[in-house]
């Protein structure tokens, strides 16, 4: 039983609150506490990576400056916007086709008088 509760505790994302039962279990379970400590340690290590800056390769800035095209005010997020638009368009087409197929099916089953 305890094993199952340990697994339940581990399944709840660390930034979500635990319910009272799980919280009480975690507070007295050494295995869960070790698990939390490992998670916290990993978060700290990941966060520390965010404070580091790596040195860009020599020549990166020069290459960029040599390749600058005309400024056109284009939206750098455009590929993402396009991807989302395509995704929703496909979903809309599938939805319309499904509804049309259902209507056609209902109509074809109607007795013709």
């Amino acid at each position, binding site marked *: 039983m305890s094993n199952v509760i340990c697994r339940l505790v581990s399944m709840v994302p660390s930034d979500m609150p635990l319910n009272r039962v799980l919280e009480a279990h975690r507070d007295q379970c050494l295995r869960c506490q070790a698990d939390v400590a490992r998670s916290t340690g990993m978060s700290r*290590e990941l966060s520390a990576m965010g404070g580091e800056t*790596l040195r860009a390769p020599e020549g990166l800035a020069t290459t*960029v400056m040599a*390749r600058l095209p005309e*400024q056109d005010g*284009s939206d750098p997020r455009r590929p993402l916007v396009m991807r989302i638009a395509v995704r929703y368009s496909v979903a809309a087409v599938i939805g319309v086709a499904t509804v049309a197929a259902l209507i056609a099916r209902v109509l074809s089953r109607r007795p013709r008088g």
Partner: protein
Amino acid sequence: MTWGGVQRDETELIDAARSGDSDAFGQLVWRYRDSVYTLAVRLVGPDLAPDVAQEALIRAWRAMPRFRGEAALGTWLHRITVNTAWTLRKRASRHDAQQLDEMLIDPSTGPERAGELAEVRAELGSAINQLSPGQRAVLVLRDVYGWSHAEVGRELGITQTTAKVRLHRARKRVRAILEETR
């Protein structure tokens, strides 16, 4: 940073770059190149990162007239870098097998500490490297760079719920990999 012998602040440089002054943009590139490159390395690995960083900075130049200063320039450049890395991720996936040791050594620390750090970070980097591109992007942006779920979702074109689920899975996977290796 000098400009014809005169100190120019970032606002001046941004205004000039927005008006098409490539020299001013060059100074901004010089200031932000390491930060853009670092994010690119975290997202796609060291092999493809120079390409992503280059492309992101070129996209930034093209888009400069649109920059309104609502976010800091660094934040704006990071968003463009994330988008560039994301759109190039198919290319990135071909390089995923590459080890990330190179990216994980912080040159600013002393040799002994750098050695320990390099070992810990190498394990962590190697674990991150084994994530799917989607999980990796969410983990890097949220846990390494401290973005909010809303920002991560917006920049990756996914819902906040999806971002949270991916993050949870990514953390679990990284932990499992680390436990196997330690």
